[in-house]
């Protein structure tokens, strides 16, 4: 047996396997690759499970490490380690070579460019949860137990299913602008024209353009608010409603004094959940303006600084700021979530 040959074939084989796993060009190749990867994954996990299941009384830690080990390793590598590294880089310069202390944070809070980013983020996090929740609540009450309830809810919930990129395109088309002399193609400007108002560049004119971007997120999140609130309205105990009725409440009085107080915990969960989603909003700003025209928010600015300007220090700082802003919302959200579950 000539060992040169063996080595040659082993090299050739590993090269082939690596190429197969890393390079896929045609659609057919790609689909085969996806199926093979899933099959390989299942095979490896099955083998591991079969191995630990063999002895009559397997050791607890061995079984546990096969069951939980892969997931924990991936979490450690994909979340814990990067989070530590990013926090570290936020104290270094743009190439992560020189320690700069709090400089990046000072920049992020003091330079006028970033103050606009922070202002916009505050505007988003304030307006989107409140308006989406308010509209969702009103709509849930209005369509509850009507003949068209199912259809009505489907229509408003639908935007939750599509991508934010898709939603951004839908709204960019609504805001489309043509000069006043030619026919409008954007619906909103056509409405203005019908009312004899000059067409507007909704996406370009600062600072109002922020509001028109915010509308897109409200449009997406209202369905979420409506669904959760509708469920908790139905869970209001009959006797409370009866008591309200005996007190002579109906219509708006009922809504204010019975419905809203009864679903308070659910309202707070919805508000904080939407606030969290809004804080991290990236796709809408990126797709509609790319963060130009004074519309950037923290999550988008993170991307711009990290990948367009290659400023790792500042990018990391913005990511950490995002992280720190999310924490109080999450803590509050989890606490209220417990209350909602206790009530149910």
């Amino acid at each position, binding site marked *: 047996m000539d060992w040169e040959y063996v080595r040659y074939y082993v090299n050739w084989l590993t090269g082939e396997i690596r190429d197969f796993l*890393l390079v896929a060009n045609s659609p057919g190749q790609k689909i085969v690759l996806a199926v093979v990867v899933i099959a390989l994954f299942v095979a490896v996990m099955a083998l591991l499970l079969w191995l630990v299941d063999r002895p009559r009384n397997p050791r607890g830690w061995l079984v546990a490490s096969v069951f939980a080990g892969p997931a924990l390793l991936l979490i450690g590598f994909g979340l814990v380690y990067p989070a530590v590294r990013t926090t570290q880089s936020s104290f270094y310069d743009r190439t992560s070579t020189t320690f700069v202390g709090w400089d990046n944070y000072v920049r992020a809070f003091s330079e006028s460019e970033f103050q606009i980013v922070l202002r916009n983020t505050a505007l988003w996090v304030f307006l989107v949860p409140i308006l989406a929740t308010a509209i969702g609540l009103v709509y849930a009450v*209005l369509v509850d137990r*009507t003949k068209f309830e199912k259809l009505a809810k489907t229509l408003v919930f*639908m935007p939750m299913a599509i991508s934010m990129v898709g939603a951004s395109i839908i709204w960019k*088309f609504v805001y489309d602008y043509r000069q006043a002399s030619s026919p409008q193609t954007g619906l909103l400007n056509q409405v203005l024209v019908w009312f004899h108002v000059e067409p507007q560049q909704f996406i370009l004119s600062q600072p109002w353009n922020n509001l028109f971007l915010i509308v897109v997120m409200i449009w997406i999140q209202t369905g*979420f608010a409506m669904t959760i609130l509708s469920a908790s309205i139905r869970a209001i105990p009959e006797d409370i409603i009866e008591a309200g009725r005996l007190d002579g409440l109906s219509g708006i009085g009922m809504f204010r004094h019975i419905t809203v107080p009864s679903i308070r915990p659910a309202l707070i969960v919805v508000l904080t*959940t939407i606030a969290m989603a809004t804080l991290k909003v*990236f796709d809408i700003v990126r797709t509609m303006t790319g963060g130009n025209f004074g519309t950037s928010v923290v999550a988008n600015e993170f991307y711009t600084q990290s990948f367009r300007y290659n400023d790792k220090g500042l990018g990391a700082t913005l990511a950490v700021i995002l992280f720190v802003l999310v924490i109080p919302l999450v803590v509050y959200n989890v606490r209220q979530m417990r209350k909602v579950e206790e009530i149910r």
Partner: protein
Amino acid sequence: MTTSTPPVTAAPITSGVQARATKLRKRLSNPWASLAAVVIAVLWTIPTVGLLVTSFRPEADITRNGWWNVVTSPRFTFANYEQALFGGQTSLANYFVNTLVVTLPSVVIPISLALLAAYAFAWIDFKGRDFLFVAVFALQIVPIQVTLIPLLTQYNQWGLSGSFWPVWLSHTMFALPLAIFLLHNFMKDIPPSLVEAARVDGAGHVKIFFRVLMPLLVPAIASFAIFQFLWVWNDLLVSLTFAGGRPNVAPLTVRIAEMVGTRGNDWFLLSAGAFISMIVPVIVFLSLQRYFVRGMMAGSVKG
């Protein structure tokens, strides 16, 4: 309620529900309330309808005037979709395949891993279990942004850039904390007596996991699978970071977002492209609405 139930107990409940229904119907007979509901429903639908109609109009018509003009001049075509899917400059069909290839492993792998881990946290006794579980729970809140640059550096070092692996791995890792947490909650709800009985019969952990728990978990798995499917299918940030500018790997969302920048006025392409990327989520949504809503609610904290 069956007919054999004494009417005495049935009466107050039914009358209560009826009274409530009448009350509500009375309120809705208020024309302003109905009007408000209709206005919201229309506002939430019209933007999508506008783009959908546009995607079927001939290119010349789209540039000539607004989509509402189809009422007076109804002309429709599939040319936009043909051009968007197969035209050399957009070739969204390729990106559609990319999205599919990105999505499938990114759904199957994290759910399988999370199921196993959730089982370990729920039913296997081992040292440090509670601490690890709390840690996993807490990690749900790490924003993806915090992880991107170190991961990108690592993938490049391993020579994985340009392949599907960075996207698959990232989606898998980002899904795990939430998936483990949710599935663990479902597993804890299963009566311990079932697991005990199987154990007395001599079943090991693997057997208990597959024979006893898995069949009971199907609805939970379906809900999370749909949530994860839509999350990956609709994702922009992860794929832009790890597959941006790579036509061989980049999914639809990345390509379409790019088209908005480079061909922002070609509405015949953008409208068709947007619906090509939305059709699958919408079908999933309409056909599996019940699971979908449950999944959306469960996953609302993610990312």
